[in-house]
């Protein structure tokens, strides 16, 4: 097989890539009692996927991704409370709001790099958290945003108490997002992001409009994170201050890193394993959950860069 064929083959869909969907559909039937957890896992996967585009592919180290998640959540929540309970338009509202914040902040932040950039991403999410805290009349402040009534999807599929509709809703949205992300990652644009990550100077020297590319992916990623936030608002009918801020950003970075960055599926593995483990173990001793996560993170950096998928890679190569 010629080298060109080898590279082209990497872009084609492989059977193993359908595994997550098989699992997700199977879980719908096998774990009918856990569908609300299932929805949360799907939401976190989407959130982690959006972060992977920016962190794993474009190489932008950010601790502020919760800003877009939170904006999407609050926008969709406020929309549901004040305007309409229609869920699909609510998703759009969340996506657009988050994309706007992503574009505006990216416009200014992406001119910097290193610590300054990191600090600015953190400052933006902190600023939004403070705004959400103070804007009581709009966001419910520290008590959170409540009172959302979400209408049936397409007027037909009601959100039931068992979380079945919510689960399938999240699954479909995640699927569509994944299709898009996958296409993007395998496209010339996606390859150019990898180029920017590997050697920005070289990208400039081959005529690539680096800043425009980064701003584009930052905005797209923000929109996807916003959709995840909107899903959270709609499926739990509550938005609290924890959707913003350092803790939320840190956690999603951890989930992604555990799975493996820059591999598209690290988000699935990382978020899935993290959320399930958290659900099972954090009940036992919530304080220690964060201790072990911290320890695992330190160990990962020292010994297992590339996360779970990286380890899998190494095992398979033997």
């Amino acid at each position, binding site marked *: 097989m*010629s080298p060109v064929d080898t*590279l082209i083959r990497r872009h084609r869909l492989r059977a193993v890539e359908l595994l997550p969907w098989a699992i997700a559909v199977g879980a719908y039937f096998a774990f009918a009692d856990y569908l609300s957890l299932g929805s949360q896992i799907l939401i976190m996967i989407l959130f982690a996927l959006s972060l992977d585009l920016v962190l794993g592919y474009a190489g932008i180290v950010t601790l502020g991704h919760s800003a877009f998640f939170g904006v999407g959540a609050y926008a969709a929540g406020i929309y549901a409370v004040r305007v309409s309970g229609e869920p699909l338009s609510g998703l759009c509202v969340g996506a657009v709001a988050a994309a706007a914040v992503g574009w505006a902040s990216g416009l200014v932040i992406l001119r910097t790099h290193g610590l300054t950039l990191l600090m600015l991403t953190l400052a933006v999410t902190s600023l939004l958290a403070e705004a959400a805290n103070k804007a009581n009349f709009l966001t419910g402040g520290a008590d959170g945003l409540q009172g959302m009534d979400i209408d049936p999807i397409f007027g037909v599929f009601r959100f039931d108490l068992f979380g079945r509709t919510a689960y399938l809703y999240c699954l479909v949205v995640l699927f569509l997002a994944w299709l898009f992300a996958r296409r993007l990652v395998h496209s*010339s644009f996606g390859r150019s992001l990898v180029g920017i990550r*590997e050697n920005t100077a*070289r990208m*400039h*020297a081959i005529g690539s409009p680096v800043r425009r590319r980064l701003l584009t992916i930052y905005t797209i990623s923000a929109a996807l994170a916003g959709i995840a936030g909107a899903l959270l608002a709609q499926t739990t009918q509550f938005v609290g201050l924890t959707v913003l801020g350092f803790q939320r950003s840190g956690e999603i970075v951890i989930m992604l890193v555990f799975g493996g960055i820059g591999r598209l599926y690290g988000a699935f593995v990382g978020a899935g394993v993290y959320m399930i483990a958290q659900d099972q173990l954090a009940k036992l001793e919530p304080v220690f959950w964060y201790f072990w996560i911290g320890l695992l993170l330190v160990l990962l950096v020292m010994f297992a860069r590339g996360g779970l998928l990286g380890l899998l890679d190494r095992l398979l190569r033997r």
Partner: protein
Amino acid sequence: MTPALETIGLHRRFGALIVANDIHFRLEAGARHALIGPNGAGKTTFINLITGRLAPSAGRILLAGTDITALSQATRVRRGLGRTFQINTLFRGLSVLENVALAIAEHDGHGGDMLRPLGARRAVLERSYALLDRLRIAGDALVPVQQLPYGKQRLVEIAIALGLQPTVLLLDEPAAGVPSAESAIILEVIEQLPHDIAVLIIEHDMELVFRFARRITVLVQGSVLVEGTPAEVAADPRVREVYLGEGRHG
């Protein structure tokens, strides 16, 4: 005839230090021009000014008669200005084929395409492979660039620049750091560059310079000392003085 590249009074200072002193320079279409000078003369700085990595304090740069002084690096590249770096500046984790494919995709204007079908990608990869073949490194197409010997990496550096189909090609010490066993192929590649490209090469290797160049510019401390044919430059006493005691590189 409009020169392929021209600088008019190109000047750059850092405080009291002048690194480019009012340089007037012309590169004709299809030229084979060498830029030489002692270390620290400002040769790479000159290249950086032309490509836009460094902004000038004064002066203008014209590409095929158009003023590009205010344009960004990337825009100048898209107008046909290509360069290689003195130290390999490659996408180290990517394969050789992908390195070149990035350049070709950008040149085609498709670098930003998100949703084009795979067929288009195949076309880019085929052309990249053909380019590698011409430079005789096609055998290493799928090898991650950081695993290649230094000489071959230098070739990839040139391949990327060629992938941009430049009208003006700036080569910054292409043979630098390459063990003599591997440098022959690099010299061949440079000699076989398409005739319509205007090439400016910075070099210390005098053998390469006299073999390749039809015109030579000597740069000393940011200023042009001499410019002329190889014979004129070799005979010039001022050049002898500058290089006295420096010896020849073998």
